[in-house]
């Protein structure tokens, strides 16, 4: 079929070459590449190769939620259009064109969301954000460009340290930003006017799958009666219906298990789920350096459980005030409507 074309490698190349690319968009781009290289002669062979490729993509990373949203959307598009094919080759060409225009539109999506979200940021307000999300950063930058004066608290979000990245970006845009500990969400909530988080995926009931810590943030926000807004592009809507935290595809037997084996104590986890190994020798002398890296873990037991910590959590819809998407500002129940329209 397509032995010479490695879709996973292509996907990783794409992400490496342009860090601004989000996972679902890169996945669709990789699948389009696959179609270009496909030598399939029959319809079913073609469909099989795409399905197989998206399966391989999904299993290639540890945290596949937003990636599978992109793959599923593209697969759905291909299957839907496969019924009225007159000429196989022209159809393939159309798919390639559509896929490429999607990549362009995906970028426009973010700008549209930013425009929709800006009016929600009140002058003189304080916004709490979590970790790093491209679309949240863009929204805040836009608001700042629109002469809104506001301050931002951002959680450092240990594991990925995304908060530090966000803070750098926001400060560069002239927005006063303070990094807080993940554990300090409850402490700052009284100073905060609204909570804004991005999304790895938005599930069928309107709930949210996002970087670990979003759920507790939502609970704290609810308790303090502060609005909790989620920002997500519609290609992150994913057909999942998690009933609890342990119902996500990213959950496995190792997650937060009590066994402590040979764990890389200083391992960090990238946004796409790949693990960056730390320096292997952790001596007592280097422990001061460790504390400077904002990994505030004191005992070796604490550090040991790092490797099996979950990357994402699930926020049930009743904690979410509104979702800002490129389809408009939606209530959580609006999400299921959009998903039904796509898959019915």
């Amino acid at each position: 079929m397509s032995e010479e074309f490695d879709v996973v490698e292509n996907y990783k190349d794409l992400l490496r070459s342009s860090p601004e690319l989000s996972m679902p968009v890169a996945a669709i781009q990789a699948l389009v590449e696959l179609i270009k290289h496909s030598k399939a002669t029959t319809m079913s062979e073609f469909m099989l190769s795409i399905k197989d490729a998206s399966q391989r993509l999904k299993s290639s990373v540890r945290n596949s939620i937003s990636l599978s949203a992109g793959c599923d959307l593209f697969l759905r598009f291909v299957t839907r259009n496969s019924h009225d094919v007159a000429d196989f080759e022209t159809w393939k060409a159309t798919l390639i064109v559509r896929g490429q225009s999607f990549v362009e539109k995906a970028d426009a999506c973010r700008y549209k969301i930013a425009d929709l979200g800006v009016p929600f940021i009140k002058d003189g307000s304080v916004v709490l954000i979590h970790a790093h999300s491209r679309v949240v950063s863009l929204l805040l930058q836009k608001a700042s460009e629109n002469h809104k004066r506001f301050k931002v608290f951002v959680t450092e979000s240990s594991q990925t340290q995304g908060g530090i990245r966000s803070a750098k970006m926001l400060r560069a845009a002239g927005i006063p930003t303070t990094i807080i500990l993940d554990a300090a969400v409850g402490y700052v909530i009284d100073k905060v006017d609204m909570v804004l988080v991005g999304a790895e995926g938005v599930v069928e009931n309107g709930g949210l799958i996002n970087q670990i810590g979003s759920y507790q943030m939502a609970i704290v926000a609810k308790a303090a009666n502060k609005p909790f807004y989620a920002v997500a592009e519609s290609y992150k809507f994913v057909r999942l219906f998690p009933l609890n935290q342990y119902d996500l595809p990213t959950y496995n037997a190792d997650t937060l298990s009590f066994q402590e084996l040979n764990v890389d104590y200083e391992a960090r986890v990238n946004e796409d789920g790949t693990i960056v190994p730390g320096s292997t020798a952790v001596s007592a002398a280097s422990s001061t350096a460790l504390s400077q890296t904002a990994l505030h873990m004191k005992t070796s037991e604490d550090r040991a459980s790092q490797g099996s910590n979950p990357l994402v959590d699930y926020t049930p819809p009743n904690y979410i005030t509104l979702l800002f998407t490129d389809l408009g500002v939606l209530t959580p129940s609006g999400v299921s409507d959009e998903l039904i329209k796509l898959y019915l």
Partner: protein
Amino acid sequence: MSKNNELVDDLVAKLKRRQLVGSSTVAQATLKLLIVVISKSNWTTCNQLLTLVKSVGQRLIQANPTELAVGNIIRRVLHVIREEFRDADVNASQNQPEFQSAPLTTSSSMYNLLGETGSTPDDSNVQYTSSLRSNIIQEIREIKDELENIYDNIKNQASLQIHSNEIIMTIGRSKTVEEFLKMAAVKRKFQVLVAESAPSYSGQEMALELSKAGVETTVIPDSAVFAVMSRVNKVILGTHAVLANGGLVAISGTHMMAAAAKHHSIPVVVCTGLYKLSPLYPYDEDSFNVTFNPDSVLGFEEGDLIEKVTVTNPYYDYVSPDFVNLFITNQGGHPPSYLYRLIVENYDPNDHTFDL
């Protein structure tokens, strides 16, 4: 054309001077004006007509931005215009084969990310026909009928909501709630507690109307709402406007009543016509409020005191959607989380803000 302008100026002036107030009145006046404008003006393309209606709309909205019903009616009309042009377009291009079926692209917006960018009717060159004009007018007249029959459609659901021997609480004078309760009284025997709604005391008028219709009515001071709430079975409220998230802009005191009801776990039902449903969000809770003449709070005869204090008289309350359990509209009962669906059905997303 100049005749049209005169009519628009007239309505703008009336809105500005607050000679026309109340969502039902302004909605009907707006619709009447739009029918005249659309039937008397020269237009041949969709874009021309949309621009015309939008420019009239912008002037009316600026005249009194707190009357959200004006904007809603204009959005409804814009939606009708788009639909009619789209229909005409589909009819014209029916025999042209397409890559994918048309309804698919219009219905699923997520799918549009990958699909063809469907041509919007704005830029299509639909041939103008006189039947198009009459179709549009016909559709708008249907909205007019809907406005006129709104109370009938809402009050017909009364006996489903109110049961015998219940105690109902309400606040202010809402025509919709009044009709609703009167209708319920035909079949059922129940008691109504009306908060007097100071400083306008519209609750007292409401109580008078209800008692005339033979409903057992008690007026209570606003301060007693919480005290008697534990004995109430249901709170039925009217509203000035419903926002896109299901929040209410209603007479001041409503928030207090809804909060008291929530504390006692008493269901809160809101009766409203669909024309009050606005696609706007409460970016700022005070943005849709107005402050009225403080004379009714502290009269000028209290001269000594007035010099020493500031008196404000806000007319509306913003009530967040988690205080409301059910909306009764002319299309039936809906939970607050369903309102987005009604907005999608009635308004075009391009019209949420009026940018020409």
